[in-house]
Each structure stands twice: as C-alpha cells, then as structure tokens.
C-alpha cells in the first residue's frame, strides 16, 4: 500500500492524533505548574464554537477565525483564573469540572451555538498540514518557554509552593499565565477541530473528553509536555490498533491505564528517563 492510499484511509486518524497532541499540551502546561485545572475541554469547546460562528456567519478566513477563537478561549481562561486562584488540588479540579459543565449547558441552550443540535457545515479547511503546522508552532513555543527562567518558576511552584513564594516568585501570576497559555493552546485545538469536522455539538466538549485528555497527560508523564503529546498519540492510535480485539478493546484501554499507573506512575516520560539514566 503506498503512502497516498494509507493517508486516504487513515486521514481522520492522523488529524485526530495532531489535535489530541495539542490538547494534551494544553493540559500539560497547567499540570507542570501543579494546577489540576480540568477545563481544557471547555476552552476547546468555546473556541470551536467561536471559530465556527465567525466562519459560517461572517465568512472569516481560516487564520482569522482561529485567532478569534484562541483569543476567546484565552480570555475565558484568564477570567476563570481569578475566582479559582485560591483553590488547590482536588478542589481546583472539581471547580474546573463544574465550569466545564456550565459551558456545556450554555452551549446546549443558546441558539447561536445551534443548541443541542450543534453547528454543521463548517468549512473543513483545517487540513492535515495545517494541524501539524500548528502543532509544530506550539511545540516550538513551549520548547522556547522551557529554556526561560519562567519555566523554572513553574516547576518550583509545582514542587513546593511556599518555597516558591519564599524566593519571591509571584505564584498567582505563574498560575494565571499557565492557565491562560493552556487556554490558548486548547483554543487552537478547538478551532482546528471545528474546521476538520463537519459538525460540532456540546457533547463533544464535556467531561468525557476532559477525562481522556487527563489520561493522556498522566500516561505520557504529568510533567513532560513531550510525554503528554506522545501519550496522546499512543492512546489515540490504540483503539484503532487493537480493533482486532473487538469486544475486549475497552477493557484493554482501562487495563493499560491501570498498569501504567501502578507500575510507571511517572508515565512514559518517566520510563524514558529511567532508562536513559540506567536505573530507577
């Protein structure tokens, strides 16, 4: 089978991997700051709807609609950061899950979002090159970020918040920024998602998807963006790869997750580091 046929048959999957990697990166940056902020699916949804509406109703070109969508999701992320700034751990998680549910209900009930029926007929101009180009841009940006002092601040906030405060780091600013960045990346993913599906509906951006993104990050390695992206890619391919297992696919999904958690809690990135260093 040549490359062209392979692509034709698997183009949807290939696109999906790119989008999932973006989503994993958007959560990863928050997790790196120790924030269990589970609102990425909601940010993605907001961006998807904004980009769909401006494309369909105002005929904006792809780039403009993506930027508008990212702006919207980043602003929402920034606004969300304020009320939750004092929440930590599970409480932050639950607050953001609740936020996600509220967004879902709003999308379900507004006429501009097409209500529960969603929006269809979005021009599918987010082709594979566009998706992977965006992924590359984001990856480069995150890499550049990892070379700055800010990324050290992020890591310290995660490891020991009071110590970070002690050395003069503005913890609130770190948390706000990482959440906003996460919102921007999720927004990019959302806009691209809208322009690669024919159809978006509120159910696409609910807790189910959020859970998935979280699982990818954990499997890949909570503190490693590369790990998160790889985790996303692997777990997106997995259901297709084990399609032959038919009825046992779901169990296998859960089993793999469990095994990774129990035996490699630092995820794939952790295994890699362990291997590179020669011992645990």
């Amino acid at each position, binding site marked *: 089978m040549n490359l062209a046929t392979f692509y034709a048959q698997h183009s949807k999957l290939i696109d999906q991997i790119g989008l999932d990697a973006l989503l994993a990166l958007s959560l990863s940056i928050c997790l790196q700051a120790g924030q269990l902020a589970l609102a990425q699916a909601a940010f993605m949804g907001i961006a998807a709807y904004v980009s769909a509406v401006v494309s369909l109703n105002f005929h904006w070109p792809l780039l403009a609609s993506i930027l508008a969508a990212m702006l919207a999701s980043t602003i929402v992320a920034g606004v969300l950061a304020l009320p939750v700034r004092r929440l930590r751990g599970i409480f932050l998680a639950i607050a953001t899950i609740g936020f996600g549910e509220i967004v879902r209900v709003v999308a379900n*009930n507004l006429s501009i979002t097409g209500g529960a029926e969603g929006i269809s007929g979005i021009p599918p101009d987010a082709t594979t090159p566009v998706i992977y180009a965006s992924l590359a841009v984001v990856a480069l940006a995150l890499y550049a970020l990892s070379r700055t002092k800010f990324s050290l601040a992020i890591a310290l906030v995660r490891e020991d918040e009071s110590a970070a405060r002690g050395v003069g780091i503005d913890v609130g600013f770190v948390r706000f920024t990482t959440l906003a960045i996460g919102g921007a990346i999720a927004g990019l993913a959302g806009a691209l998602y809208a322009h690669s599906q024919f159809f978006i509906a509120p159910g696409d951006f609910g807790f189910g998807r959020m859970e998935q993104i979280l699982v990818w990050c954990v499997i890949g390695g909570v503190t490693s963006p590369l790990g998160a992206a790889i985790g996303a890619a692997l777990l997106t391919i997995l259901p297709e790869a084990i399609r032959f297992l038919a009825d046992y696919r779901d169990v296998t999904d859960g089993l793999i997750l469990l095994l990774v*958690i129990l035996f490699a809690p630092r995820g794939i990135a952790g295994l890699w580091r362990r291997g590179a260093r020669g011992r645990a």
Partner: protein
Amino acid sequence: MIAQQLINGLLLGAVYALFAIGYTLVFGVLDILNLAHAAIFMLAAFATWSMLGAGLPLPLAFLLAVVLAGILGVLLDRIAFAPLRRRNAGTLIPLISSIGMAIIFGAIARGIYGVDERHFTLPLLDAPPMRFGPVTFTTVEISIFALAIVLMLVLTYVMRATPLGRRIRAVAEDSVAAQLLGVNLEHTIGATFFIASALGGAAGILTALQYNSVTVDMGGQIELKGLAVIILGGMGSITGAVIGGFVLGGVETLAIAYNLSEWRDALAFGVMFLILIIRPRGIFGKRALRAA
C-alpha cells in the same frame, strides 16, 4: 403542584445523598476522589437485574447486590489505591487510577450486558400509584425513599456509635495518630470502601428501580452531580452529603418547576462553583483547604 414537586425533589435528593455519602467517605478518609464510584453504582443495578431475572425475590437480590457492591469497593481499593498508598502518590495519581478502574468496570458491564437498556418486569412496578390530595407517588417511590433514609440512619449509627465508626473517623482525622493509637489502617480503609461502595450500589439499584432502566452509562450524570453535592455539603462530612443531596435535589426540581429546566445542570454546578469560591469547605466541612 408545589406539593408534588416537593415530593419529586425529596426523592431525587435521597438518591443523590446516598450516592454522595460514598464519595465523601472515601475523600474524608483518603483525600481521594474515587471516580469509579459511579461504575459500582451501575454494576450493582445490573447485578440486581440479573438476579431478578434468575428468579430471586427483590429484597434478597437487593441485599446481595449491595454486598457485592461493597466487595467491589474493597477490590477497587486493593487493586487501584492500596499500592499507591505505599508509594505516597498524592491526589492526582489515585484519581487517574480510579478512572482506569471505571473504564474496566464499564467494559465488563458492556461485555456482559451489551449497550442496550434493560428493564425490570416486576409486578411491583406496575402497582397503581397512591394519591393523597395534591400528591401522587407509587409504592416503589415510597420504598426507595424509606430505604434511602434507613440506610443513611444506619450509617450515622455506625459512624457515631460503633468501634468501627470511631476508627474510620479517627483515620479521617489523622491517619498517623490513629495508627499510633493502634488502629489497623488497611482494615479500616477496607471497611470504609466497603461501606461507601455498598451505599453507592444501593443508590444505583434504587435509581434503576425508580426509572425502570439499567444502562451501562447510567452513572455518567450522577458522577458529576455527586461532586456538586459533596462540595455543597462539605468534603468529608456525611451530614453534609445528606443535606447537600437534598438541597441539590430541591434546587433541580424547583428549576424545572420555574421554567429553568434546560439550565438546571448549569444551576447545580453554578452553585457548586460559588461555594468553592466563597466557602470551599462547604456547609459542614471541617477540614481546611489543603495545599495538595
């Protein structure tokens, strides 16, 4: 109409409360959010359906399914949480672990029962409803409500007046001190999971009977609503879970009664969000926020 809506709200609230107690017990003792709770909720309902299909009488099937749910909870702990405890794994990892178990439980249910909705064929369910003035309810509904209240009372008794309850509360308060005082940590945790999951399972069975419907995804909605309940009532507080359950049931029912039906979920989570911002420990929560 208000009277009937009140009844509707009480019924909804009772089931919410029963389910949320399971969440809050585990969180109080272990600081873990167990996202496999809803899966056990569902499995207990299916187990009951199977047993009824095999000819067992309802009370026996109910009892056996509740015990089964408890056992599943203990298993869940042994497989997914206990190994992580030894490793001091924080709060995120056990959460993911519970997601993994939830997926496995779901897959098992789907494997055995498929994705179709199951119904009960109990003559009890066809019994004519009873009317008292402006309100109507059925035998099933009153039984569900009564059973939920009884279970909550039993739990309160266990927690307040039995040695086991004291041990659980001690571990929830301070697990290290409790161990120093001779409490067997693993046994107590196991017992906590048994009770929590048994109650969650009971909630599942009652829900299935109430709507005459058992599906593999029946836990999806209540999984998230349960979060709102424990935040409202206070994480770790059983009284909070009960009160929170009824408050949420009431809020949702009133939302429908006052033409806000489509927004009722947003309302529930909006209230939860507000509580988290204004008073994160909820109405009855005693623990201060931990920096996780």
